[in-house]
Every structure is written in C-alpha cells, then in structure tokens.
C-alpha cells in the first residue's frame, strides 16, 4: 500500500497518523495480506455460509414500551468536554 492509500484509509476512520506510523503500517498491511492467503487455502471456502453467532439460538424477548428515567442532561453529558449547559456544542457542521 502506498502512502497516499494509507493516508486515505486513516482518513476514512478519522484518525491522524504520525509519519512513523505511516511508515510502519505498510508492513502491518503486508502481514495482513499474508494472513488472508491462509483463508484462501480452505477448500470451497466461498461457498460456505458466513457465521455470525457462535451457535444457533433465537430469543423471544422484546422490551416493554415503558420508559425508564434518564439521568438528565447534566449527568449524561458530564463525560463530554464539549458540553455547555444542556447541549454538546461543536464547530458548525457542514452537511
């Protein structure tokens, strides 16, 4: 993967990379590709059904539509450094 592609990938998940990290990632990626090759080796792998849950089990529980008390604006926003009064405030977002 070249530098351009690496930067683009990082930008997609909204992270910044240092120049060292950019340099190191290429090796990580090469390793990743090697790992994927080991999957290719499995016979008829692509015909197999993907597995989501570890075993087959269904549930029937659906939550009753009864409200529970919320912590309130002050409490729920206390972990946000962007909180001002009862809102989270950020620089204007362009759609």
């Amino acid at each position: 993967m070249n530098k351009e592609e690496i930067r683009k990938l990082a930008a997609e998940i909204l992270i910044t990379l240092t120049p060292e990290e950019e340099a190191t990632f290429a090796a990580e990626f090469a390793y990743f590709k090697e790992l994927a090759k080991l999957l290719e080796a499995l016979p008829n792998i692509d015909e197999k059904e993907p597995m989501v849950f570890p075993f087959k089990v269904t549930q029937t529980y659906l939550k009753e539509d009864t409200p529970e008390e919320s912590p309130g604006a002050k409490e729920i926003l206390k972990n946000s450094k962007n909180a001002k009064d009862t809102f989270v405030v950020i620089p204007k977002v362009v759609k």
Partner: protein
Amino acid sequence: MRYLGLTMTELHELYVSGKATPLDVVNEVIEALTKDKNNILEKTMYDEARSMAQSLTKVEKDNLLWGIPFLVKDNIAMKGIETTGSSNILNGFIPLCNAEVIDKLLAAKAIPVAKTTLDEFGMGGRGETGHKGITYNPYGKERTRIVGGSSSGSASGVASGYVPFAVGSDTGDSIRKPASFAGLVGFKPTWGEISRFGLFAFMPTLDHVGFFTRSVSEARVLFEKTRGYDKKDATSVMNVPSKTEKEATLKGKKVAVLEPIFALMKNKLLIKEFHNLVDKLRQAGAVVDFVPFDKDLLAAIFPTYFILSCAEANVSNACLTGIGFGNKEEGASYEEIVANTRGKGFSSRIKYRLMLGQYALKKENRNEYYDRAQKARRLIVEAVDKVLENYDVIMLPAAPNHAPTVDKQSEPHSEIENNFMAIANFGGNPSLTLPYFLDEGLPLGVNLTGKPFDDFNVLNIALKIEEITGLYNLHAGLKS
C-alpha cells in the same frame, strides 16, 4: 500478611469463625496493592472498598463471596469509577452504571478494590500494550516476564496472591492464556451465560466475561453466582439450560487431544508432563485419544480471528470520537476534533488494527477478508463440534511455553500453538485453563474446551485434574 494468598474458602472460614473481618482483609489487600511493582493497577477504589467492608457486619454463612476482595479488568464498567480500557482516549471517562457482572458480585457482598490493566481495549496477548505500559508476571525474576493478555493486571494480581479472584474478559484467549503464564485457573464460560452488559465491546460474538481464581471450585462458585439471563443483554441466553452434573468424576469421561497442535510443542518437559497427565487421566478411568484435525483449518484459526476482530474492533470503537464523551483533543471542525482525538488517544497498535479492519470491510475487499473469515469461522466451529460429538472436552497445553521474557517487539505471533484457543470463542464453548506443572518455577497450564452449555462438565473434569496435579491455590509468593 495473614490474609493474602488465601483462597475464598479460607477467608470465608476466617469470617465465619470471627477470626477476621472484611475490613481487616481489605486493609491488607490495599497495603499490598500499593506496594505492587508489576504495574497492574488502573483506577483504585480503596475508600469505597473500606467503606463497603465496614458496612458488612453480618456474616452470610452460605455465601462464599461475602466480604471477598477482588480486582476488575478495566474494560468492565463500574459506576462512578474511571474506566479507561487502558487507553488514553478514555482517560477520565466515568461510567454511569455498573456492568451486570459487577452488580451481581456486589449483591453477593464481594468487595471490588481496584481496576486492573489490560492490553488496550483487549487487543493484545502479552499484556504490554495498555497505556500504563508493561504489566509484569510475579513469577520469575522481578519484572522480567510478561503475564500475557489481554487480562494482564487481573492475572498478575491474583497470581501475586493479593486477592482470591479477579474479573477478566476473553475474546481470543485473553483469560485462558494469562492463566497459563500465571499459574491460575482461568475460566471462560459459554457465550451468553454471563451478561456482557458493561463489558466494553471488542467483538460482540467473541467477547466473554470470565474469571481468574486459584481454585477450580471457586471458579464454579463465581460462575453460578454471575450467570443467568439479563434482559439488558440481547445476547444473554435464556432458553438453553446448562446441563448439570452430579458428582465430579473422570470415569467414563472422554478427552480428545488435537494431535496436530500437540505435535507442534517443542518444550520437552511440557511434552513429558502432558503425557504424565494423560496417563493419570486414563488411570482414573477417562478415555484420552489423540485425534486428527485438519491442518489447513488450524492454520486458518489465527487469520480468522485477526481479520474478524480487526474489522469488528473498527466498528465497536467508532463511538470513541471525543464528542459525546472521551478525552477530546482540539480541532476547528467536527472531523478535526475526532481525528485528533482518535489520533492522539489511540496507541499506534490500535490504529493499525482499526485501519486493517476498515480495509477488511470495504466493498472491494470484503469477499476476501471479512466475509471469508466469517465463513472460515463456520468451518472451524463445525470441525470442533464434530470432535466434541464424541468427546467431553478437547485438552491441550494452553501455551507452548512458560511466560516469555519481556520483548521489545510485541507481535502478533501467528503460530498455531499460540492461538488455537480462539476456537472456544468462535463456537462460544466453555473453556478453562488450569496449571498442571511448573517449569523451573514457572507455571504452565492445560486448557479444556467443552461443548456449548456443558460448563459444569468442564468444571468437574478440571476439578479432578486439579486433584491429580495438586496445584491448588498456586501463587507466586508474596514479597513483603
């Protein structure tokens, strides 16, 4: 140091006979923790622990957990206590409610004393990558060996004898591998048995809550106390009851050793001791067979785990932006704030994993990466199920060697013998590691993996093995 290095059962006896109070014990635990040199601690709860200990005045004779101090891996939420996932991006984050497992332990009057270090967000197997740096194994020369990961601090703390148990989590082997390096019982129950509410998600369908203890019977007690349907967790299983067993016995039990994995072992002592154990099991009436297993599937275990977990970690951690919570960095726009927060808050390793995960999910790649890994998961689980059709458990050395010394370079190591325990995460199987011998004073564990929902059977077989090895309440000795 009267109360350290004791099991739950021993502490319980002291409480019942009036020879000690929870406060006595907690004070000693705190003193020991403050002197700990293995870098196991995240946020401590000493005041809260003392306060809770003081409030426990009426001993509950039938409750083994009453007044028992414990440690909690820092990816498990505790109300009002900073919980960071051992990542800088969550420095200062204070959850508003307890994880369900914590609520259950508190209801049983067990006393949480401190949060412990982990590999950042559970992504690691050596215990070196949390934001506090390396967590050390109390075994071996001081601060020279890793304790494994990702539940490093919990394992180290229990192995030092500070507390009889700790809560951990296991997504690929994060309880069962450090248990091996630290001479502990590490138990990961069937998926869905213990509620995941409050466990920071890494990969939901592989994540499990579990425990470190120094006794198999105490792992069972913890399992019984914390398992059960939780309607806050839509993967909490309610319909399939765990099969109970009457008395623990090895007679008629069938044990499978996956021959191709065992064949990779090189440590001669390990091989010898394992064969010894096999003999003893057979003497006790168990059938132990060395069975074949597809080598390509074995080679696919780590790639499947790594690809899936990178992809899912990428998604699970997409909420960490610094906007609604988290250790925010400055920025002139939403994108800048988020990118700076994540860029600064995540370690390099995490960033690489998330990027690889993103790559694995992209439209043009996912056939060969994420989708294929999901398919490989099914192949592997089916193959494991097939073995377990005819056997109670699969038994193998939990690690090919004792705890390695601290390395500069930290992985990943993709060798089959280092990563096979992920099969119990793929299939949600109950899986337990317990110590079976010491190699020049350094412990090594054996791992048992059973059928989903057959947890008690696994625990019982482990109990009999513990009797055989006599390695009960093993700890590294407490250096005063």
